[in-house]
């Protein structure tokens, strides 16, 4: 008995060990999962940024006068594709891209300026999680036409 007591682990010891290991493992797994989720998130953000930049590059190659609100709209990867962007790489699920073109005419260059310009702002947002706005990449660019004074 004594030999047995001395040569093995008691159930309590084993349970305690398992509990400690479990706690550690859960925490580690949680940490790993979080890290993985963060990495996935940033990878998706990189992909989103690329999807957004694709649109910006595409529109900036078009003459200023031809870029108009007909390019506005929402694309949903794998289902809705905007024919205006047929030459762009296809979006894949779950990415969703929306484009908004804001046009300004004869606007002062800055407050109090006599110089007036025409310009357009291209606003592109790409989501990869429809349920939350935190999974949103929002970028934009300018198209400057000319001074109009």
């Amino acid at each position, binding site marked *: 008995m004594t030999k047995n007591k001395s*040569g093995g682990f008691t159930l309590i010891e084993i349970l305690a060990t398992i509990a400690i290991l479990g706690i550690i493992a859960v925490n*580690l797994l949680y940490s790993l999962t979080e890290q993985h989720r*963060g990495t996935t998130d940033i990878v998706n953000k*990189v992909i989103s940024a690329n999807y957004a930049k694709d649109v910006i590059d595409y529109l900036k190659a078009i003459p200023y006068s031809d870029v108009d609100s007909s390019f506005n709209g929402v694309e949903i990867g794998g289902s809705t594709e905007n024919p205006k962007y047929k030459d762009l790489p296809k979006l894949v699920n779950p990415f969703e891209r929306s484009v908004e073109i804001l046009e*300004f005419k004869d606007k002062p260059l800055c407050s109090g300026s006599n110089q007036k*310009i025409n310009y357009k702002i291209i*606003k592109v947002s790409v989501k990869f999680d429809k349920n939350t706005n935190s999974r949103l990449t929002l970028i934009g660019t*300018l198209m400057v036409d000319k001074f109009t004074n």
Partner: protein
Amino acid sequence: MRILSNKKGITFFIVIAILAILLIAITSYNSMLRSERYTMYRIIYGDNALIIAEAAMDLLQRIVEYEFALTGYERKNTYFKYEDLIKPKGEFKTVNFDSTKLTDVISNSDPIKALIEIFGGSSIAKVKKVEVTIDEKNVKYFGDVSGQSPNIVPNLHEKFGIITYSVQVEYYGITKTLNISKQIKIINVLPKVLRHFTFFIKNIPKGTDLNKILVDDSGVPINGKPLVLYNGEYNSPSSLSPLDQGMIFLGNQPASEPLILKMSHGDSTSGVGELFHLIRKFYLDKEFQRRYENSKGYQVGHTEYGVSSGMANARYFGIQTPKDLLSSMLKLYCTPAAPSPTRILGNVNRCYLRLGAYQDKQTNGTEHMGDMTFSTPATFTTAGVPPITEVDADTHGLLDEGGKLKPVTAEWIAKKILPDELGGMDLYNAYAEFMNQFIDYEPYNYSMLTPIKDKNGVDCDPNKIPDFKTKLFPSGSNSYGGNPAKPADEEYTGSDLRMLSLDEKYAIPYASYKFSGDKEFTDFKKLFMNGSQTDALKLGLATTFEGDIRLPQMTIQKGGMIICKKGNITISGDITADPVYNQTLAIIAMDGDIIVDAKKVDAILISLKDGLKFEPKNSLDISGTLAATSMDFDKLLTTGGKISYRPCQAVPTNDTNFYYASIQPDVRNWKVILDNDKK
């Protein structure tokens, strides 16, 4: 017991070690993932910063382009000093645009502020610094590198170089700098040489009869229509400078075959006849040499003097007022090194000169018209430097102490060109008095082309200079001074227009925009005729076409050059200079015709090869210059017309008002050659 106890300890230690290793591995893995995420965020932030920088760069370039556009004529530059930009070789230094102002205007511009809001606001993203520089190390001068026409002295103000833009943007602490370089040109937008001329014909073939038009006894043309050349007014209220008057060049006749050009003055249908002899170069008067062999080069100026057929009718041969006397001059090119090819006999100091009108019926010179056949060509030299008369009291004496006719006086000239039967000494005296009026009123000879200036460099009114005559006449060691007045325009020093070769080196280096031809004229209009006034041309630089081009009706609000490298230019609509802007447009055909099919053209027309063609249905009316290598005079005189010189086009090369700085489009043409394509 101890052994067993030790076994448990070892087991525990092993478990702890495994856990530690696991913990370390996972922590390291986490750290690595975090680091990668951080790196990826930096990449994203850097990319976003670049996107903002690109937008700011786009706006910056527009601002600078607009700023450069102001160098055309407005001169209201904000971010650099225009004067710094156009400094000549040796004085030009690196031009740094005002970085503080540019950074301020970019970062506070509404478009950039709106863009930054999209990226999260000004607390996250901002434009830190904007710089624009033209480094003197990257600037070259056209005169040094472009192989200018050999007879044109390079303009050292004209240059090209690299302009560098730099935009620095910060996004979430990540700073990105975007740099872009472009080529710029800084040029004078008026043709270098020919803008000084009313009428320039480089080659007139031997045997060409320029005197195509016959007139009746009243001076009314019987056939053909004259070309009236109006060179400007000497006593114009706007300027007293003779440089404001156009010149006429009819070149390339050999001395042995003087080109006799019969002209009349006045712009009415009928005119008063004059006689002009234009010869290729001076030749010596043997009698003069014999008489005055020790004269050390008495020479007669090339400039305007001669005989008016109306001289007998008025006090001084019909000249009523100084303005009338001096209101127009036929000026011909000359430098000391290359004497004028032209000797003119005839009073050309009139407002209007009419080419090719003469009367075939011989007259006695008192009927205000016709070919003065009694006038024999004189044979004195025409080096053009010394004056033709002396200014002291003895000048008006006809004879020297030896009883010989004084050389190089107005009287002497009269003796040479007027036969005795017209009046003898009385006539010569009258003629001398008549000629001396010119000397009194104009900066004579080369001085005429080099206005006297006061200590501040301002042109003087000759009539208000007490010692004007003294200043006019050089003083020094030779016969009429060892310091002859300087040539008219040092741009031509050592050159002779007859030797002028006009090729693409002349104009093409300045071209800022290139078009294929008429099919791209729509693009031309988009760029330069895009204002609310549909026919308003706002050029301000040089453009080239490499194909036929048809110019529509245009109103010039900003001048420049339109060059057709290959093909014809058809002017199908009136080209009018907007009087508000007073700009000059040069239309240059380098390898084709200029076909004028319009009623009025306010421009400098230069045809470097074949010449100009005229549509007979329209009489030519040019306000500017007409210059050609050769010309069909038969056709010209069936059409007739008028060329009026525009003084505003005779600006000196260093006149800052006619320089334009332009940013050049990127002409790099990248081509990828795959290995498979290589042979």
